[in-house]
């Protein structure tokens, strides 16, 4: 599967690691953002909302565990998968990283094949993107994984074709949004994540964040009921 256009944030205090990981990921057409410490990583994660984050554990000042803790407290970032890339091969580090939400743990030294295989797996999990609606009815506040087929923006009206996980295509037109009473449609995309109520202004960015399947079922049902 092509990974072209997927985005990955790499956090590591060592410049050689950043360069090596960048070389490996860019060979697959992945867009790579680099951070050399946790704070820079959190800021970049919020502004770029990458599809995947790869972080080191041992870093001066804040370490990878601090990153995982702060990331999971952050509504906008908590669903982004994280691969830990560390030289720490003790059971305690692995257990703690996983407990704090790491999806995978890759041991240094970096081996191109292994890293690509793990990154590919995590990026593949996100072939469905998500779109969040915040409607005036609190009970209808939902998210769903969708594949955006077409998206455009006319003023503040949003038009998009989305393919639901069930392979059913729904035209997400202004009319449907009105039916859904989506006065405050919240499209969470890469850029609007930093400023979530974006009224579709960033819809062309097509870079949504993956959300769980149970919530997706709710919106799928609502879309059917209300269409």
């Amino acid at each position, binding site marked *: 599967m092509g990974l072209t256009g997927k985005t990955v944030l790499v956090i590591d205090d060592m410049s050689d690691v950043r360069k090596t990981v960048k070389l490996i990921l860019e060979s697959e057409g992945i867009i790579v953002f680099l951070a050399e410490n946790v704070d820079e990583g959190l800021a970049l994660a919020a502004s770029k909302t990458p599809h995947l984050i790869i972080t080191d554990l041992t870093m001066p000042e804040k370490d990878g565990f601090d990153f995982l803790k702060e990331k999971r407290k952050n509504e906008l970032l908590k669903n982004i998968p994280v691969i830990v890339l560390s030289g720490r091969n003790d059971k305690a580090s692995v257990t703690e990283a996983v407990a704090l939400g790491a999806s995978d743990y890759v041991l240094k*030294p970096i081996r191109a094949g292994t890293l690509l295989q793990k990154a590919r797996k995590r990026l593949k999990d996100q072939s469905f993107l998500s779109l969040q609606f915040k409607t005036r009815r609190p009970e209808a506040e939902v998210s769903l994984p969708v594949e955006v087929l077409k998206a455009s923006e006319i003023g503040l009206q949003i038009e998009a074709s989305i393919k639901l996980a069930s392979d059913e295509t729904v035209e997400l037109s202004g009319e449907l949004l009105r039916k859904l009473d989506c006065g405050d449609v919240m499209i969470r995309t890469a850029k609007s994540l930093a400023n979530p109520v974006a009224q579709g202004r960033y819809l062309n960015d097509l870079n949504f964040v993956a959300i769980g399947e149970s919530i997706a079922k709710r919106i799928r049902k609502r879309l059917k009921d209300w269409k």
Partner: protein
Amino acid sequence: MTQNKAQKEATLNVSVLDDLRKLDRSPRDSVVTELLEAFLSEVPEMMRNMRSALEAQNIFSIRKQAHALKSNAGNLGADRFAAICQNIEKGPEALLKNLIEELEAEYRLVAEQMHQQMKKTA
């Protein structure tokens, strides 16, 4: 025991560099060359710092340097160098002086082989 394990490793595991070269789309594998150049320019200073820490008996600093060097070397296939770093990072204090000397000697071999690799690319 750990010493012997380090001896079994290659000074430069060329397959690691070859794998990186295969991915490198830049002209003349310049990213790999850049990584090797960075290693050769940064590591001597890190080793000098380690030597100073040894003289100051700053064990914490020695182990920290060893951790950083281990990653640096391992990523480029300097496996024996990385294994010695691992021994410095985890091994008993009494062995540190010998291990650091061993590392310095190994560095000379690594540097020589890396220079050859760079010539191959240029």
